[in-house]
Structures are given as C-alpha cells and as structure tokens.
C-alpha cells in the first residue's frame, strides 16, 4: 500500500521526511498491525500467546498515541490510491475520531494483556489471533477514516474479525454457529444501510471524502433519507432495540477478551457514526432527529436493562446491559440534538458531554466486567449465575475489580457512571422550557426512563455481584474456584481503576471530551471536580468522598472501641430462624432473585413457566417432588424476526418452481423475454 501524504494543506509532502506526528503514529500503527499479523502467523504455538499478545499491545499503544495526537488537535493523515481510479483510501482522524481511536485502542490494550493469560485451545489458535488482530485493527481504523470507502473498509475488517472470533468454539458449542450467523447477517445489514446512506450523501456531494459530505443540508430530502439510513445502520451495530438481536447471542459466544472489545469498543463505533452524522456531516439537524434518537435510545435502555435484570447467564446479562448503556448514550445524543434545535445551547452541550462521558465510562466498566466474567468462566467453568456463589473469598482480586466495575455500571458514586448520569440529569433539568411542546414532553419522559433504567441497573448488578461473589458456592465448580493468572487480574483491575479515576477526577476528563466536540465552557474545580458554568452546576466527587469519610470516622471509631471489648465470633449461623444451612441450594438463586421483577414486568418479558408437582404414592397431600421450569426468550425475536425468516424460507421453497428442470419452461422464459424486448423496441 503505497502511502504518501495527502496532497493538501493538512500536511507536508512525503518527499522530505518531515511527517507530522499523526502520520508518523498512524504509519507506526499500520506497520505494527502487519508485524502483529506476521508474529501471530509464524510464532510457535507455545510462544504464540505471549508474542502475539505483546505485538497487539504495541499496536494498541501506537493507536493510543495516534488518537491522542488527533484528539489534541494535530491534523494530518495518510493517503493511498486504489485500483479504482476515483477511489482513494484516506486516514485523517479529526478530534472526535481521535477520541474514539483512544477508546478503541485502550480497550484493545487491556484485552490483549488479558488474552496473554486467558487464551487457550481454540482461542489460542493462529486463526483466532489473526482474527483478533484484524478485528482490533479495523476497530481503530474506523474512527481514523477520512472518506467513505476507507470507513467501510475498516468497518468490514472489524466485522470480519469479530465474526471469526464468535465462531472460535464452533466445534464444541453448537450455538456458536447460529450466533455467528445472526451476527454476520445483522452486521451485513448495518453495512448495507450505512453504504446506502453514504451513497445518498455522496450523490449530492459528488465525491466520497468526508470533508465534501458536509455540503448536504440536513433539512433536504436527501439529508433526511441519509440520516434515516445511516442511523438505522449505526443503531444495528450499536445493538439498539429492535436491532439488538445479534448482541446477546454473539457477545457470550466470543472468547471473553473478544467480547470485552466487542462490547466496550465495537458497539461504540455505532455511537461514533451517529455523532459523525449529527455533528460533522449534517450539524444542526431538525427536532425530529432528536426525537427519533431519543426514543430509540430510551426504548433500548429500558428493554435492555429489563432483559438483563432477569437473565442468569453472566455474559448474556452483560450483553443486554450493553444495549441499555448504548441506549442511554443515544438518548443523550437525541436530547442534545433536540435541545439544540430549540437553541437551548447550554443544555444541549451538557447532554452531548453526558453522551461522551457515558461512552468512555461504559468502555471502562464494561471492559472490566467482561474480563471479570471471563475470569469467572475460566475459574469455575460456569456461566450460569444460578450455579455460582462465594467467589468473593476465593477470587479476591477479580471480585474487587468486578465489584468496582459493577458500581460503575449501577452509576453509584464515586464512579464514572455516576458522573455521566449526573451530567445527563443536569442537562434535563436545565433544558426545561415551556416554549417547545416537544421538549416539554420529551424531557420528563427521558428523566423517568433514565431513572427507571438506573433503578433496574441497580437490581441487576446487585444480583450479579451478590449472587456471583457473595453467599455460598452453588456448584462444585464454584467451590473449587481459584484466583486467575496475573495478566488477567491486572487487566481487570486497570479497567476498574479507570472507572474510579474517571469518576473521581471528572473535570479534566470532561474538558478533554468537550474539546473533542468543540464545547466551550467546561471547567475543573476543587479536587478535579466538574463544573458547567453555563448551567451553574458543579460536582466534586473527591470532596463528596472526603465528606463521607469524615462522617464515617466516628462510626469507625466507635466500632473499633467496641471491637476491642468484644471481637467478632464466628459461628455456623447466628439465627437462621432457629434452623441451620443444610445445603447451599436453600439460598436464593439469580432466578429467584429476579422473580419479583419478572412478575412486575411479565407483560413485557412474557416468560414461559411451568410447574410440575408429583405427589407421593401414599397420599396426594404429600408432595414427592416439584419441578419448576422457566424459559425466557426475547419477545422481539420471537414476535418480530422468526415470522420474517419463516416467510423468506417459504418464499425460497415456492420459488424452486422457477427451476423445475423442464427445458421447455426455460425456453419459455427466453421466448417471453424476446417478445417483450421486441415489443419494447418497436414502441
């Protein structure tokens, strides 16, 4: 690929070797990606995980550098011609792109570090490593793309790599095949939608470079068409309801380091694309864009977290919670567009900032959560919460990382999730206006949705952590669990650390994010606290933490004093209503934990339950055994997708008649074609 600098103002000619930093970093990343592929291909099986893992880490590091440079405002890019004379590949990240490059690269780095300790068997095969490198490389190139073809190229590389990763265990897990199929088809759907949307834009702009696409007016018909197509495409990738259907299948099937990247970074590319549309290509979109994004996000958030709260499969639960988080992000973007269309600039900017905060915070905690889930699976061989328990004492490091990340997912202080939702809420409060009826209706609904989502997220993650890590092991596998290897626990811990760091020092972070989307007044106050002067609100988590400690101090002192007189005494069970814990099976399981919610929302969830009671032979008043079975299936899949697929299949069967083997029929086709043509030309 003959890279030379794009002949325009952005950068200097390639002849004299004065590349600007971005180009240097991007070139380095390309070379490192090639190197990583080579290493993964030739390294001996015993060394592969180390060599390939380190190479991938290097690639990710260069990605972080490149993204950071672009984010800090350096411009520049790489440019390469292709066999199609009018098509040139361009890598030229702007600030926003840089931000998402950083997110993608950072997640990749953690995942690669984790993989060194994690992968084995099929996940350690040459093809799996190549797929992982290809996947993460494409992931980092999507935000760097400077024109349509490059974007689509990186997009499909990403899809291809992740698809192969979903198939990793196709020999042992039959469901991996169907998961990969769902994933492949939905990804292709998103690809085609995006392609169509870009084509619509290009048909007006006349060329395929991003800089040229800005000529399209958001209020024109083409603008509306392009917006619809692109948003649908990106929503599919982002796993929004009702296009989320691939997500809870694919994420659990992929190896955990891959699902971490998919969930923490890949779906973010849908967010990036949406921001690309509403911020870069067609800024100042009409109000209905905001409404569309808002409702899309709101529905996804509630539906996703509802499904998550009643799921018992750890990774499936996390996948659904991804749908929830991305839904919140879209809701924030929608609110921003809506408010901006009524010139409520300050509130709109706050919402946009909230969207970005949600994005990075989700990247941090979801990465850590999936890595932790991988550790659980690796240590216990169980993915079903109903068979876990007591891991807190057995895997303390993983438990710590997982717990912090879960706090972040539940948006509790002082984590990144808390800051993000606080910002979102501030934009809602201060966006309140009586002038615009749509705003007056949308914002309260949004508040309610966010609140309900937050509440359900709380239940979900209390269940996840409490059932998984507390109480007593519910299966032998959980009982025999041991702490995982160092790279694995460190990757998870770093992610958790990021969750806390972003939560404790939101000010600087928010300022960087604001610079990426050109938001003005965001300030740092106190101990790295966040302040939005135009809204006159501030939040200083550090000060909050200090106050909490001050309040807790006397309590601790008193406890210490009484502890000196009466140390704790361990006993089998202090009270237990007079009984004793005969077996762990007496504990509440994840399913029973979610049962009340299931009852409350059964209209939405539609669980299939059946209870079989077998009576003892002596008397029908004695119960020999009770069997309870509950099956949860995604309503949207059952009601929406299945019928469609069946219809298409029936169509396929019917249309076999076209090719029924009779030469006369075939000749008739040609004959009819001939006559039609004759008539047409003689008209």
């Amino acid at each position, binding site marked *: 690929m003959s890279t030379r600098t794009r002949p325009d103002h952005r950068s200097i000619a390639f002849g004299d070797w004065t590349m600007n930093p971005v180009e240097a970093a991007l070139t380095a990343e390309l070379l490192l990606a090639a190197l990583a592929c080579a290493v993964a291909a030739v390294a001996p099986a015993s060394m592969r995980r180390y060599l390939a893992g380190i190479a991938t880490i290097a690639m990710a590091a260069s990605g972080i550098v490149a993204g950071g440079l672009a984010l800090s405002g350096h411009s520049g890019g790489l440019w390469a011609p292709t066999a199609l004379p009018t098509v040139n590949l361009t890598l030229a990240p702007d600030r926003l792109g840089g931000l998402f490059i950083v997110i993608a690269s950072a997640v990749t780095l953690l995942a690669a570090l984790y993989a060194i300790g994690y992968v084995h068997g099929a996940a350690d095969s040459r093809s799996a490593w190549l797929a992982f490198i290809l996947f993460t490389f494409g992931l980092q190139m999507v935000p760097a793309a400077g024109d349509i073809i490059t974007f689509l190229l990186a997009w499909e590389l990403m899809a291809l790599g992740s698809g192969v990763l979903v198939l990793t265990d196709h020999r042992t897990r039959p469901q991996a095949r169907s998961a990969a199929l769902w994933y492949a088809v939905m990804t292709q759907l998103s690809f085609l939608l995006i392609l169509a949307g870009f084509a619509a834009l290009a048909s007006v702009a006349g060329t395929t470079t991003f800089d040229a696409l800005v000529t399209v007016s958001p209020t024109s018909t083409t603008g509306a068409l392009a917006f619809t197509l692109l948003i649908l495409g990106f929503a599919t990738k982002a796993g929004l309801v009702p296009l989320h259907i691939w997500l809870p299948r694919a994420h659990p099937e992929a190896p955990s380091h891959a699902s971490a990247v998919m969930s923490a970074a890949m779906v973010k590319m849908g967010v990036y694309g949406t921001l690309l549309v509403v911020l870069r290509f067609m800024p100042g979109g009409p109000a209905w864009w905001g409404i569309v994004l808002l409702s899309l996000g709101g529905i996804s958030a509630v539906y996703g977290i509802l499904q998550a709260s009643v799921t018992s499969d750890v990774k499936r639960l996390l996948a659904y919670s991804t749908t929830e988080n991305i839904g919140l992000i879209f809701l924030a973007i929608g609110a921003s567009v809506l408010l901006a269309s009524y010139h409520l600039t300050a509130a709109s900017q706050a919402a946009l900032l909230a969207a970005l905060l949600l994005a990075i915070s989700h990247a941090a905690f979801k990465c850590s959560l999936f890595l932790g889930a991988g550790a659980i699976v690796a240590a216990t061989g169980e993915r079903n919460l109903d068979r876990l328990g007591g891991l807190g004492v057995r895997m303390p490091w993983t438990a710590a990382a997982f717990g912090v990340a879960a706090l972040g997912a539940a948006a509790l202080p002082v984590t990144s999730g808390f800051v993000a939702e606080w910002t979102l809420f501030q934009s809602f409060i201060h966006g309140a206006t009586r002038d615009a009826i749509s705003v007056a209706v949308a914002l309260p609904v949004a508040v309610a949705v966010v609140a309900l989502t937050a509440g359900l997220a709380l239940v979900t993650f209390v269940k996840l952590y409490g059932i998984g890590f507390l109480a007593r092991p519910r299966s032998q596998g959980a009982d025999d669990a041991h702490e995982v290897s160092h790279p694995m626990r460190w990757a998870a811990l770093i992610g958790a650390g990021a969750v806390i760091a972003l939560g404790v020092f939101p000010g600087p972070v928010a300022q960087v994010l604001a610079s990426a989307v050109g938001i003005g007044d965001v300030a740092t106050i106190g101990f790295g606290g966040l302040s939005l002067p135009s809204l006159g609100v501030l939040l200083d988590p550090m000060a909050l933490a200090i106050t909490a400690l001050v309040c807790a101090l006397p309590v601790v002192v008193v406890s210490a004093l009484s502890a000196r007189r009466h140390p704790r005494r361990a006993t089998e069970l202090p009270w237990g209503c007079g009984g004793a814990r005969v077996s762990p099976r007496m504990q509440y399981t994840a399913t029973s934990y979610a049962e009340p919610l299931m009852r409350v929302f059964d209209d939405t969830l539609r669980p299939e339950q059946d209870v079989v009671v077998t009576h003892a032979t002596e008397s029908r008043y004695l119960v020999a055994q009770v069997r309870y079975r509950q099956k949860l299936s995604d309503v949207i899949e059952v009601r929406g997708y299945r019928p469609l697929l069946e219809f298409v299949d029936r169509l396929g069967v019917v249309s*076999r008649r*076209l*090719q*029924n*083997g*009779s*030469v*006369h029929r075939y*000749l*008739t086709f*040609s*004959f009819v074609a*001939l*006559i039609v043509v*004759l*008539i047409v*030309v*003689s008209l």
Partner: protein
Amino acid sequence: MSDNLYAQLISLTAGTLLLTAALIVWRRSLRACVRLLAIQGIALAGLVAVLGWHERTIELVLVSLLVLGLKAVLLPLVLSRNVLNHDDDREVPRLNPTASLIFAALLTMLAYIVCRPWMGDTDDPTSRAVPIGIALVLIGFLLLITRRRAASQLIGFLVLDNGIATVAFLTATGVPFIVELGASLDVLLVVLILQVLTGRMQVKFGGTDLDDLTELKD
C-alpha cells in the same frame, strides 16, 4: 430482370418459407417435418439466388449454393438419419396443432407490427419481406417450446436459424462472407453435437422424450 418479376420471386420464396414453417407447426410426423425443412432450405437458397441475380454479385450466388448444400441437403440428411434409425416418428406436442397454428398466426402478426418502425414503409420488396424472417424466428421458438422430442427441437432450432438467415439476406444481402462461413459452420456443429447427445439420450433413457430430462432441479 424486371423489378416486377424480382418482386414476385422475392415474395414467392419468402411465402414458401413462411408456408413451410406453418406446415412444420401443423404436422406431427417427424419425417414430414424434416422434408418440409429441406423445402424451406431450398426456398431460402432460392431467395439468396434471386437476390444475387438482382444484385449481380457472384458472391451471393456462391452463398446460395452454400445455403443449398447446408440447409437443403446436409442438415436434413443428418436429421433424417437420426429420425429414421428408430421406428416411431410421432411427435406428441405439448400444445395441440390448432392452438399452435393460431399462435403461429399471432406471432406472424406480431412480427409485422414490430418490424414496421425499423423498416419504415418502403415498397422495396426485400424490406416488405423482412417480417417473414422475424416470423420464422418466432415460429422456430414456438416449436422449441411446444415440441417434446429432441429431434423436433432440433427442427425448431433450424427454423429459427433460417429465419435469422432470411432477415440477414433481406436486410443486408447477407453478412460478410467469412462471418457467413463461420456462422454456417457453427450451426452445423451445433446440430451435430445435438445429434450425438440425442444418440446418448436414446441409449440412456431408451427414448428422446425431453420430459425425461427433469432430473436437475432445485
């Protein structure tokens, strides 16, 4: 020769072509069809000869001999060998003759309609005869669609080819000689190949009914 006679000869040969085609549609006996095909070949050769005579070009006369040899003698011989070497030569068409004839008539009308815009309405006899060529093409196609036996599909194909040749001679007094040669050679080869295949069919299925050929389907 006088334009009048020329015009009459043109229309005579062209008419013969159309007539033979119609008869082929009507008849069920393969032998008869082959004979009619030979007559059609002769008529075509006659048409070419007339054109050559009118244009005073020796090349066309050569071509007419070629046509005569190929379409009036060689191909019918090949066909009849195939038809004769097994006893029953009854065709059981998928469409009864009456209906086929009506279709043939309709197709001829269609040919006249579609040709009008290209030819314009000149009183040049060749131009007026062009639709007959098109009609032959369409009728040949009709035969291909409606006939069950391998041999009669061959006949249909040849009628179609005659139609194309007719159009060629009437509109452009034939394509360049080398192309004409190549085209004739191709037709001959195709017919031979189909002959061989028919033979194999005879062996494999013990008959040449194309309705046996519905193994390959989705």
